[in-house]
């Protein structure tokens, strides 16, 4: 029987004295409870735990945990054939204090120990107001009959890109993306996520007639066949960008900012740059893939215009060009500039958006909610009469079909879903993406962990999710008496606010519930 000789296991067994640096581990966050009667010592949990939390002790013929290492990813719980494992919170934690919360204290400990930036993954987990949750949707009663989507046709197709200003004969036609439902998979780069997951996204996008976004990591040669459903990103690192990369795709996207970490570039540690990743990103194997914080050739709207038209030239004006920005203060003015610079699509990424790795302090404190950004951008573009020149994609914090409906009413054309897609394929939101050993095989390319997610399984679950959402969106449109998403776009009368101040209501451009 193999003996799992993890450093912390040896501490727990009393085989090694704790060393300085171990000590803050003395306060476990979670407790792995194991029902010894049910445990059959099959060691599935030991093999599945990538966080050095579970180990087998041959002397006691038992499975034990170093609870300090548990991140509550629940992989062992999921795999245990006898349901012998469950996670609980560890004890009382620190003394109750609403100011010095458990997490705050732990972060200080950790930083005092390491002197480093505290990294994290996934999206902002703080208790900010969720405006999505404070908006409610209208429904038809008596005077305006609702529609039954099972009996009548319902249009969910979204054309994303520049529209003509007025009708002409022959009509002006601009390159548009045609999505069968207004939900697109968010930019997640190969390297940050596993190849299998990206392949699953590609397969699901093809199946559902929508798009996936490559992120800044290039397009893997094996995914080239899904080019018709790929939005390819050009970020500050320019990883994997080639003429073939651009012209093989459905659309090009210039990444200026990311909702989870506005103002800083992506960071893929060298150990995650495997042979495959290096080939796709066109960088040496094992080298850190550090994206610069700004795009160094874009210091003004005019510079952005150069790049946008550079991409349009490269793709011979056959594909829309998108610009993605993080939702920050004055986002409306920035978006206006972007549209005037020639972008066909503007993506506004809210501060709830996820990330593969970001400093926790930036993830948690920088940016604004996508709801208000969306309302403001849509309003501004309409006021300036340039709303038709670009489509608006909202990203960052879209969790359900209800969020999609609310976002449509606030003025978005389509939505990016990233975290929701990860959760659909098994993510338990344990926020360990930055550690590169995701126990579900989603945000890792470690060869023993990545196969835990199989592309066709991911594709099936993602397709199911999209199918379910599409059905719900149809139901909600029908209940509002609408038969297409075009009729809902920017229709803020269908929304009402609950528990908001007048300033908030005005910012969102909606009325108080009851009015």
């Amino acid at each position, binding site marked *: 029987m193999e003996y799992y000789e993890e450093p912390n296991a040896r501490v727990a067994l009393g085989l090694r004295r704790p060393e300085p640096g171990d000590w803050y581990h003395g306060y476990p966050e979670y407790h792995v409870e194991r029902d010894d009667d049910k445990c059959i010592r*099959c*060691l599935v949990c030991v093999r599945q735990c990538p966080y050095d939390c579970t180990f087998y002790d041959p002397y006691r*013929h038992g499975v034990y945990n170093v609870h300090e290492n548990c991140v509550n990813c629940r992989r062992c719980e999921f795999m245990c054939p006898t349901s012998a494992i469950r996670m609980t919170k560890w004890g009382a934690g620190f003394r109750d204090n609403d100011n010095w919360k458990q997490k705050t204290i732990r972060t200080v400990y950790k930083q005092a120990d390491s002197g480093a930036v505290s990294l994290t993954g996934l999206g902002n987990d703080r208790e900010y107001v969720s405006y999505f949750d404070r908006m409610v949707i209208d429904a038809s009663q008596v005077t305006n009959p609702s529609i039954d989507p099972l009996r009548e046709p319902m249009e969910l197709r979204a054309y994303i890109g520049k529209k003509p200003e007025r009708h002409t004969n022959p009509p002006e036609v601009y390159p548009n993306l045609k999505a069968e439902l207004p939900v697109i998979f968010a930019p997640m780069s190969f390297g940050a996520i596993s190849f299998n997951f990206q392949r699953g996204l590609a397969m699901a996008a093809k199946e559902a007639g929508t798009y996936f976004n490559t992120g800044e990591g290039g397009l893997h040669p094996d995914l080239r066949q899904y080019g018709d459903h790929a939005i390819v990103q050009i970020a500050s690192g320019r990883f994997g960008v080639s003429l073939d990369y651009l012209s093989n795709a459905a659309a090009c996207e210039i990444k200026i900012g990311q909702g989870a970490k506005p103002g800083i570039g992506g960071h893929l540690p060298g150990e995650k740059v495997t042979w495959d990743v290096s080939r796709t990103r066109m960088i040496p194997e094992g080298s850190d893939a550090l994206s610069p914080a700004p795009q160094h050739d874009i210091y003004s709207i005019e510079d952005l215009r150069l790049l946008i038209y550079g991409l349009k030239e490269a793709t011979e004006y056959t594909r829309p060009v998108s610009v993605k920005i993080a939702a920050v203060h004055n986002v409306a003015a920035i978006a206006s500039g972007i549209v005037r610079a020639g972008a066909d699509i503007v993506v506004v990424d809210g501060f709830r958006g996820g990330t593969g790795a970001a400093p926790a302090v930036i993830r948690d404190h920088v940016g604004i909610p996508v709801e208000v950004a969306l309302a403001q951008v849509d309003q501004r573009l309409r006021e300036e009469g340039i709303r038709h020149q670009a489509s608006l994609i909202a990203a960052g914090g879209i969790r359900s079909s209800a969020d999609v409906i609310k976002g449509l009413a606030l003025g978005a054309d389509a939505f990016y879903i990233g975290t929701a897609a990860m959760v659909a394929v098994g993510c338990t939101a344990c926020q360990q993406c930055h550690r590169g050993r995701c126990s579900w095989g989603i945000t890792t390319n470690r060869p023993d*962990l990545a196969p835990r997610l*199989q592309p066709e399984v991911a594709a099936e679950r993602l397709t199911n999710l999209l199918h379910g959402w599409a059905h719900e969106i149809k139901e909600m449109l029908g209940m509002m008496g609408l038969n297409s998403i075009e009729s809902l776009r920017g229709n803020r009368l269908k929304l009402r606010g609950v528990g908001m101040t007048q300033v908030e209501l005005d910012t969102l451009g909606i009325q108080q519930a009851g009015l």
Partner: protein
Amino acid sequence: MKRVYPREERCINCHLCEVACIVEHSETKLPSAAYHVEGLRFNREDSRTICDPAEARAAGVPKPLNRTLVQTAGYLSLSTNCRHCEEPDCVLACKNGSLYVAEDGRVLVQEDKCVGCWMCVMACRYGAISRNPARSNVPAVAFNGINHHCDLCPERELPACVWVCPTNALVFEDRDDQ
């Protein structure tokens, strides 16, 4: 004939196939019982059944045996079991004819005839045959155990290992035409 084929690029080294195999070949088909109780019904020289896990461990009672085996090397892992060959080396080597090819093509052992002589272990080039020390047809010290290998789960349509595999790293299919 349908056989179990591993797809190593999908294997995640969880060993659930082994668990499923043991449970499927247990009497109760309940994991806890299969491991904690049935595994201890050990036909020792004094024909006594050990029921106390601590005593069983002290006596060196083997844990229940899986017929499928996950073999690993570094990051690579794959689940292997009997290939059910058309001309099985084990049948050609079997000392007293207790191994045979059944009508449906499965390679099976007559469990009341096998004398545990190691010839099949020696002959099987896939390393797919092990020995089940819990049973013996030769009560002498020198010879114990009988041949133990995959029987493709006769009571199930899909073998248990294939059924349980979370990443479909095992497939049960007919590749005879390929």
